[in-house]
């Protein structure tokens, strides 16, 4: 027999001004199973809470209904009070007399009647409440970081420095990402490699970091604190333990004319290669698509010249299985190539290049050793034009967003050009200069005022080649849209930053969402910028949106802290508002018939198959089983279940039907 206590709060006058609280309490006292009913000025105050606690103790209450404000406000308060008095906190319910009644209706009988109804509904519900306990799950204190650009490097180092293990995987042969391709960085013009390479080395040497390059995520299962990841280590055709990184193979490889990814196609590399001199690890891989041995079955020169016999032509991809408690996704971004622009020649003019290609030209480690030279004929351009918003802010091309980083790097490019080619003239076509950031605006002003870069406000309509020059047709919108034609030697397009290749596939593997542009979606645009909507998976850097280096690094450190918070606990606790599949005595075991409709309905992949076997191991029945670690308690499966075998704790069928009945029987 239930013994329920009803506690009606006046909330000062917030409730009592329109609701007759005494009458509500009095009516409630007459309900079946109500052992105690009282109204009080401030239920949430200390005396109010004591009132509840002592009633629980004295009357031996089995359930509590607090009729006060919204449960979204004070449910935790009152549940805690109940727990302190020895009552299971989930035996406490709240009737929302303030937000849903007294504040929205005029004083009168109808309002008091509604308040009475609301209390009655919950009195009836609480009779069916069950004691629930918080869910505890263990935490595997190893993090998996995907992507070895600056964001992934930063996140790995930060997590590793808190004393936790990190596995860092990178799809390319070396870590470093786009940052390793950059020449100088805005707004300080310090050399990108100089500040990055020490970090790369630190990653390689850190005792807490396991680095897998040339590796990709194959699959991911599990849930926060308890993920199981499969990693594909693509074959490097090399025994890394034997290889000393002497580089002899790369110099002797006869296939030398493969466009270098690192140099954005402006230079070549052999088929066995290290992407760049400072690569980490500094050991080569064989590019099987171009290697003569793999394509034609002959050559093996690298094998012959290798002093340590480290080449392994028959090496296969390796799948590594790891258990991790959290993931940081730092897979970065890509840029549109010049062939995306019909009006700028579909990529057919060699001297129309992307911003990233310009970085390689300007970089001391690049194909021109840092001299700005035209890809077509190696001449130093006398006139250079930079185009901002190439593809960005262009809904007609399917990219309505601002790529954010271009305004700054264009100013940097123009500045670097002016520093390197003193007699040269540089022009920047822009729509707006977006230089929000510390010392950013000042940097752009320096380009304009001190380095004499010509900024023209307008978009370029067309570029074509004539007599070795690139004719750039633009307009100056600050001069009444006056047409402007520049005969340039080189044009740099600040092409749009886009989501990386394979972003969708990765998102699907991780069960995280992505936006219409395939950038990964954060859990909340303001308050959860590094979380995803899958607990335990965090984002860092430009995989979430175009970001510059300082932003990527801060985001990575933010994600690392989130991981560290998670790893600071041995167990995770969660509210027990989750779905459960009923179990019955044999021979039925459960009313679940194993249709598994719930499996397809669940947005969290939280429902699995459970096989019930007899002592001889023979299968009796397959039924659904909810993984309490993954279930978030939405209850979609409950509405789907044909046999009503799955139920959600705290919102059971019994409870919800009772609420409807309780409401309407006396309504």
């Amino acid at each position, binding site marked *: 027999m239930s013994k329920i206590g009803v506690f009606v709060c006046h909330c000062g006058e917030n409730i009592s001004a329109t609701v007759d609280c005494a009458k509500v309490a009095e009516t409630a006292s007459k309900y079946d199973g109500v052992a105690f009913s009282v109204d009080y000025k401030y239920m949430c105050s200390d005396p109010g809470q004591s009132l509840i606690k002592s009633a629980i103790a004295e009357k031996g209450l089995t359930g509590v209904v607090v009729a006060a404000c*919204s*449960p*979204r*406000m004070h449910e935790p308060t009152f549940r805690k009070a109940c727990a302190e008095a020895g009552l299971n906190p989930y035996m406490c319910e709240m009737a*929302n007399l*303030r*937000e*849903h*009644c007294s*504040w*929205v*209706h*005029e004083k009168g009988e*109808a*309002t008091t009647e*509604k308040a009475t*109804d*609301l209390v009655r*509904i919950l009195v009836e519900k609480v009779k069916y409440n069950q004691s629930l306990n918080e869910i505890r799950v263990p935490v595997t204190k190893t993090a998996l970081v995907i992507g070895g650009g600056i964001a992934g490097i930063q996140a790995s180092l930060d997590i590793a420095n808190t004393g936790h293990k990190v596995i860092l995987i990178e799809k390319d042969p070396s870590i470093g990402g786009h940052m390793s391709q950059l020449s100088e960085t805005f707004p300080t013009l310090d050399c990108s490699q100089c500040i990055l390479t020490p970090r790369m080395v630190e990653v390689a040497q850190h005792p807490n970091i396991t680095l897998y390059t040339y590796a990709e995520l194959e699959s991911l299962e599990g849930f926060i604190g308890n993920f199981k990841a499969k990693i594909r280590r693509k074959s490097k055709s090399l025994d890394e333990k034997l290889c000393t990184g002497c580089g002899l193979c790369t110099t002797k490889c006869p296939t030398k004319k493969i466009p270098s990814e690192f140099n954005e196609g402006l230079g070549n590399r052999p088929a066995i290669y290290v992407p760049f001199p400072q690569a980490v690890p500094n050991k080569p891989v064989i590019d099987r698509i171009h290697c003569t041995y793999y394509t034609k079955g002959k050559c093996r020169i690298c094998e012959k010249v290798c002093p340590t016999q480290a080449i392994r032509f028959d090496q296969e991809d390796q799948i590594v299985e790891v258990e991790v408690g959290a993931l940081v996704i730092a897979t970065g971004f890509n840029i549109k190539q010049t062939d995306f622009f019909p009006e700028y020649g579909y990529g057919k003019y060699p001297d129309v290049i992307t911003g990233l290609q310009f970085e390689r030209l300007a970089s001391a480690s690049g194909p021109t050793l840092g001299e700005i030279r035209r890809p077509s004929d190696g001449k130093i351009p006398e006139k250079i034009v930079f185009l901002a918003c190439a593809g960005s802010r262009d809904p007609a091309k399917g990219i309505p967003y601002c790529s954010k980083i271009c305004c700054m790097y264009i100013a940097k490019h123009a500045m670097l050009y002016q520093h390197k080619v003193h007699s040269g003239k540089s022009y920047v076509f822009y729509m707006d200069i977006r230089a929000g950031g510390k010392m950013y605006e000042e940097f752009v002003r320096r380009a304009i005022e001190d380095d004499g870069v010509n900024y023209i406000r307008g978009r370029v309509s067309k570029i074509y080649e004539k007599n070795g020059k690139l004719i750039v047709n633009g307009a100056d919108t600050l001069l009444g849209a006056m047409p402007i034609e520049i005969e340039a030697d080189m044009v740099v397009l600040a092409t749009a930053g886009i989501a990386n290749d394979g972003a969708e596939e990765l998102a699907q593997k991780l069960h995280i*969402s992505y936006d219409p542009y395939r950038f990964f979606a954060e859990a909340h645009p303001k308050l959860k910028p590094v979380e995803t*909507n899958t607990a335990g998976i965090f984002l860092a850097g430009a995989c979430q949106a175009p970001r510059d280096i300082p932003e990527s690094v801060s985001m990575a450190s933010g994600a690392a802290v989130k991981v560290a918070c998670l790893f600071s606990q041995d167990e995770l606790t969660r509210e027990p*508002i989750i779905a459960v599949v009923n179990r019955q005595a044999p021979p039925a075991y459960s009313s679940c018939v194993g249709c598994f409709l719930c499996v397809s*309905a669940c*947005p*969290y992949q939280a429902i699995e198959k459970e096989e019930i076997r007899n002592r001889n191991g023979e299968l009796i029945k397959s039924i659904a089983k909810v993984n309490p670690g993954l279930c*978030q*308690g*939405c*209850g*979609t499966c*409950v*509405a*789907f279940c044909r046999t009503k075998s799955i139920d*959600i704790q*705290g*919102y059971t*069928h019994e409870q*919800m*039907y009772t*609420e*409807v*009945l309780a*409401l*309407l*029987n006396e*309504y």
Partner: protein
Amino acid sequence: MAEFEPKIVAFVCNWCTYAGADLTGTSRIKYASNVRILRFPCTGRIDYMLLLKAFDEGADGIIVSGCHPNDCHYTSGNFHARRRWIMFRSLCDFTGIDTRRIKFSWVSAAEGAKWADIVNTTVASIRELGPYTEYKIVANNPVKEVSHG
């Protein structure tokens, strides 16, 4: 004769519409007192048999409301609810249940005024339709089973 006061039951999700109705309260926007809110974790949890139960027990009108598409706290519960609603509505039409008495809407946690508006318009339209006495008639005279022989 006093004006007919319809009994309206609202099935709402905890994250958007329940919070939206809280905001109506904190904004002190007044609305008709004929509605009683039942709180669910998500519209995806709402078993539409509960709606029939409510009509059976004497409800005159029903509101089902949750997060806007793409705003679901659980990413896709509201889409399931919407899909099931489309099915359920045609089932109601088939069996003769008056679907004008069910209001399906999205109210976000920021739409306090919209919640008041939905309650008021629903109350007004149900008031116009009158008490739902036909339900008992429909429920007690089920369509004869169709033979597939």
